[in-house]
């Protein structure tokens, strides 16, 4: 039963990852892609949680913590440079 739950969580996360990459590919503007990247970082935290539980390697929780912070820094950096760039006409 527990194995089934872990497999189900992996499958659901994979579906969400495919949808996130679909928006990353589709765009249509750069901020949309930044939002997709942020969701993909959250999904990676979920994958780490599943992996920690299924393998029992607890030090990987630290990786999730660092990933949460770096995803925040990436999003804020993107937003800052976008804002400095001014009005843009994307496709």
């Amino acid at each position, binding site marked *: 039963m527990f194995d089934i739950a872990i497999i189900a969580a992996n499958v659901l996360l994979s579906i969400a990852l495919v949808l996130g990459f679909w928006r990353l590919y589709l765009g249509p503007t750069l901020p949309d892609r930044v*939002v997709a990247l942020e*969701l993909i970082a*959250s999904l990676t*935290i979920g994958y780490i949680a599943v992996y920690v539980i299924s393998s029992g390697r607890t030090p990987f929780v630290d990786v999730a913590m660092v990933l949460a912070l770096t995803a925040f820094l990436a999003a804020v950096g993107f937003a800052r440079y*976008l804002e400095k760039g*001014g009005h843009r006409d994307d496709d």
Partner: protein
Amino acid sequence: MTEFFTGLFLVVGAAFMVVAALGLVRMPDLPMRLHATTKAGVLGAGLMMVGVAVYFGDGGVTTRAVAVIGFLLLTAPVAAHAIGRAGYFVGVPLWEHSKTDELKGRYDEKTHTLESPPEMHEPAAKDDASH
């Protein structure tokens, strides 16, 4: 019992992640996509970290899982605000059926300042009643 709750938290968290990704794909413009991904995404990741804390039941792991949830809850709204602000400033179009855009025409792209809001209607009847 521990395994049951861990599996429950993992599956429910992953389901919220799927909802967030569906919102990301299906919503029509940038603020709505932000709305879907930040809330549902943070809730999904947080529930999965709660699953980790429940499964190990160990002080160190629980502290680190709570720290991950705290960082997510602190950083996600700030990041969403920054992206939404930048998206508005660089001219990402809103959905064509959006009703109001209160910043329209009042934001100066050169100086990044807003004009003051239009004058509110003074309640004139109250002024007469005071005499």
